[in-house]
């Protein structure tokens, strides 16, 4: 089996701006150095074989989304190596990349073009069918959508791409039961076709169902790595 993703001692540091001066003290300290460096990911090494799926678990703010962006190539590591051999579908996060003022149709066309795909009528039709959103809804500005409708749209666009790796960032929960079921069967079908998934969720049961492997992050460090069942159990114990 060939390796799809390989992260080797990846560090990601952010320079954050401390602007937003709230007091005289802030004002003077910010003149000294308006930036501070924060480490988001520290020393992350992991491998994912082609066709396997990896669950990522951890508390809020532990660096899960940053890890996903590093794998997707959106963020370059400050040090270390992040190698990906294969194509990646855009990250599935709630409303990711959608332009709120544009209509559903306009967003579909925009995003397809941004992914470098041709917005052919067939491609659009396939997305519309999968999303089960009706014509009137898709002509409305996306800002009027409920979170479930946003999830339907982003899922449908992302799943219409033919890629080796799909990245899902905590979006499953907002769709209704019918759509969740549909997404899961789609994921299963794609997995059977040899595609991989990176799956972030706060529901260990979901992770167990979808992934064979999982990792547990804590404060930017990868503290545990192993089979999904084992890691999910560990994750549950964190909150006991």
């Amino acid at each position, binding site marked *: 089996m060939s390796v799809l993703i390989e992260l080797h001692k990846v560090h990601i540091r*952010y*320079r*954050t*701006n401390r*602007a937003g001066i709230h007091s005289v003290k802030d004002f003077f300290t910010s003149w000294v150095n*308006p*930036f501070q460096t924060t480490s988001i990911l520290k020393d992350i090494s992991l491998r994912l074989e082609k066709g396997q799926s990896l669950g990522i678990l951890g508390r809020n703010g532990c660096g899960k989304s940053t890890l996903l*962006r590093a794998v*997707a*190539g*959106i*963020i*370059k590591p400050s040090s270390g190596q992040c190698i990906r051999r294969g194509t*990646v579908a*855009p*990250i599935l*996060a709630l*409303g*990711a*990349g*959608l*332009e709120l*003022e*544009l209509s559903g149709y*306009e967003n579909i*066309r*925009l*995003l397809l*073009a*941004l*992914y*470098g795909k*041709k917005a052919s009528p067939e491609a659009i039709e396939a997305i519309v069918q999968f999303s089960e959103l009706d014509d009137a809804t898709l002509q409305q500005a996306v800002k009027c959508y409920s979170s479930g409708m946003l999830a339907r749209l982003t899922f449908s666009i992302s799943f219409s791409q033919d890629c080796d790796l799909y990245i899902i960032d905590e979006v499953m929960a907002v769709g209704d039961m019918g759509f969740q079921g549909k997404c899961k069967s789609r994921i299963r079908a794609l997995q059977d076709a040899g595609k991989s998934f990176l799956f972030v969720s706060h529901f260990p049961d979901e992770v167990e169902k979808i992934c064979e492997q999982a990792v547990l992050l804590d404060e930017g460090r990868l503290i545990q790595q192993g089979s999904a069942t084992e890691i999910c159990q560990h994750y549950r114990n964190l909150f006991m």
Partner: protein
Amino acid sequence: MQFLIQLYALSKRNVILRYKHSLIGFLWGFIKPLIYLFIFIVIFSAQFSTVSHYVLYATSGIIFWFFFSNIVSQGIQSFVLSAGIIKSVQIPVILFPLAEVLTELFNLGLALGVYFTLMQWFGLQYTFVLLWLLPALFLFSMFAFSVALFLGTLNVYFRDIGILWNTVQPALFYLTPIAYTEALIPSRFAFVIRFNPIYHYIKLLRVPIYESISPSPLLWLHCSALSICSLGFALFIFHQLKNQFITSI
């Protein structure tokens, strides 16, 4: 190729978004200069009588000034306002200010189409000299893009830049001979104008329209050098800072 598809999609998005909820849509592109022109005629009426073809003179300045100032104003915000896309799609971020330039070129094309028709009654002569506008516009776009890229990059870290630009913009406008002629400036202040880069570009674009002659080689040289240097500088700053964008937008 993918680069071009993305650039086109972003520019199209800009055009749609800009006039999404307005009644007269892209007509604003040439109504805005028209309103300015009207104000100038009222304020500078004294000068109006001494300058031949004042309407043509002022219009040829205003249109290109708006072209520049729109690119910079939109470009400054382009990274910040596209945070959603930058955070979820792997895309070269430099496309965002570049798309603003394309959008404005489109708007400018529409405005020029109308003004070139109207201006025949105000002294515009249709000669081959007007073709100099194409390379001149290329240089001016390059300069406007550099300013937008540089300020837009800084604006990611310090939102003050956007506010500052809005404040400085009117000053810059009146420092450029758009509504008034160069002859009006006292010689001891002439250096101020010469240090204003936009002055050179406006002149480069105005000469073929207003005077129906080719711009001088020296002016071409000035503008080319200015465009290349500013682009180099803006790209340098951008490349230094772009990797940290995602955390600050």
